[in-house]
């Protein structure tokens, strides 16, 4: 924010927001470019594009009016709000906590560190239904933690708080694993230089470390967010699934399917896709700006 001049691309070519484009042309001198690009395109089309096209085609069966009616339905609107709102909250909370975890794992050596490393990955590996059932057992009013929270008047399982807990759980590894490698690669000299110039610990972290890993934090947060929005398995066990209150959009899609309303289900799916895509674009732009600032 302070160094707008430094960020101008003419002054520093390094800060070109699309460095990959330039590199692509350079690297095409390497053999096998056409072959690998071809395989990439076919693979992407089959795995990503084809199903998404099917999804994009389906809703129009009910016409624009039908799509609008589906999306303005209070229950659908409420479900989208629950899904995106709580996902965002969970991803944001995971940012500082994930950073702390990554920091602890990279900067300190202590017994049990490797076990901790493995534990971080556990939400990746655990089947989501298992995670949901385990979390529900713990946070239900008769579970050990749920009872504790109930005593101070906080309802955990079967409330939005329960959804939040599940989404924090599944999102954590995305944030930690995004930050960790960047933190490991961070040049010690820069920090040492800052120290010799008289920066205290706090200043060093705030002005040197954070700007450098900012893009990584953001990418971790967007990954966690994207994952949370689509999460179904773990959430339906802990959510309570009450329409307008704790019903997530993916569950509403399943309910529409049970009604043989394929077009309605696809409409919600497409809306989620559009919102997610918009959110990811915003986060990517923010990331590019952060990256510029970090390098400047």
């Amino acid at each position, binding site marked *: 924010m302070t160094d707008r001049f430094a960020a101008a691309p003419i002054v520093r070519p390094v800060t070109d927001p699309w460095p990959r484009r330039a590199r692509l042309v350079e690297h095409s001198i390497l053999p096998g470019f056409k072959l690998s690009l071809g395989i990439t395109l076919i693979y992407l089309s089959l795995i990503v594009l084809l199903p998404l096209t099917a999804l994009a085609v389906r809703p129009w069966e009910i016409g624009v009016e039908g799509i609008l009616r589906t999306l303005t339905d209070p229950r659908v609107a409420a479900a989208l709000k629950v899904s995106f709102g709580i996902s965002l909250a969970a991803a944001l909370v995971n940012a500082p906590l994930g950073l702390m975890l990554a920091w602890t794992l990279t900067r300190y050596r202590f017994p049990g560190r490797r076990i901790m490393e493995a534990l971080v990955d556990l939400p990746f590996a655990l089947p989501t239904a298992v995670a949901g059932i385990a979390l529900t057992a713990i946070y239900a009013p008769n*579970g050990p933690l749920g009872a504790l929270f109930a005593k101070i008047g906080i309802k955990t399982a079967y409330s939005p708080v329960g959804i939040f807990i599940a989404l924090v759980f599944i999102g954590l590894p995305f944030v930690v694993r995004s930050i960790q490698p960047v933190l490991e690669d961070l040049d010690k000299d820069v920090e040492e230089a800052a120290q010799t110039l008289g920066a205290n610990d706090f200043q060093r972290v705030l002005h040197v470390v954070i700007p450098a890993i900012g893009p990584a934090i953001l990418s971790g947060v967007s990954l966690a967010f994207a994952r949370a929005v689509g999460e179904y398995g773990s959430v339906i066990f802990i959510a309570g699934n009450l329409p307008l209150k704790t019903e997530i959009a993916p569950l509403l899609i399943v309910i529409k399917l049970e009604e043989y309303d394929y077009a309605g289900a696809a409409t919600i799916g497409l809306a989620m896709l559009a919102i997610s895509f918009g959110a990811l674009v915003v986060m990517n732009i923010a990331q590019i700006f952060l990256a510029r600032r970090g390098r400047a």
Partner: protein
Amino acid sequence: MTHDLTVSRRGLLSAGAGVGAAALLPAAALAQGSKATTLLNVSYDPTRELYKEINAAFAEYWKGRTNQVLTLNQSHGGSGKQARSVIDGLQADVVTLALAADIDEIAARAKLLPANWQSRLPNNSAPYTSTIVFLVRKGNPWKIRDWPDLIKPGIGVITPNPKTSGGARWGYLAAYAAAAKTGGDAAAQAYLAKLFKNVPVLDTGARGSTTTFAQRKIGDVLLTWENEAYLTIDEFGPHDIVYPSSSILAEPSVALVDKNVDRHGTRTLATGYLNFLYSPRAQEIIAKHHFRPRDQAAFARYARYFKQIPLVTVDSAFGGWKKAQATHFADGGVFDRIYRP
């Protein structure tokens, strides 16, 4: 996650199901030349234990008659979901679902069996019946005796979502019929609105609700199948079963999936399987699992489990499943209106 749920196009799914069925078939073909001896029964949630025992009995019976060794596969889940899987290409030889409406959907949407399927077997194609009862905590601390008690303030009622669960649909209709008896449709809809205000957790299937009520100890009364209530007592220890002053005659129906059995060459076997459900031996197993058998002798032996209360039928009270489905559970129906903000 979301996307693969959303894009469950029929073509894609049937391809997947076809691969699954192809994996099953060669083994059967090898064992008996061209005559297939594998049967897939696609059923609903609370019948797992029942069909496990029936399948064992049928395999033994069939071996005695034809000397064929059978492989009987069973698949369970929410009734609506199971019907949709069959429509999308799951190769069921027979379906044994929670309600006729779900089999109607298979007939109407995928044309896998004729529309008059229900008249092909005795008793509306339902070899057993059940009803909806209340399951309460031991000693019935909140003195829940009948339908009006469920809408008292502070009472937590556990039921699955009628949109996704067959049992919940029967429960919803039982509640509706009881309330409509005194005040007509308006009173019934007001009653159901209050009832669902008392529901703190809506699970997607009967088993999920059982877990919520019995294991997580949420709520004061579970609205469930009679057989599921007895199973809960067996699994989770003492609870009290309360029979309301009236309930509904639930007829879980069974049917042969014509197009699939012809493709697999399993018509004789599947017909034998469904007829076996009406035999005294199967009826005894059915009664033992707390489903109400059609066979009077079996019923009499287990009569102490089946309290006689007035039961309305879907046909007389709601004009059949097709109409009930369209009025109450379709998009924008009565149930949807309960949850308008």
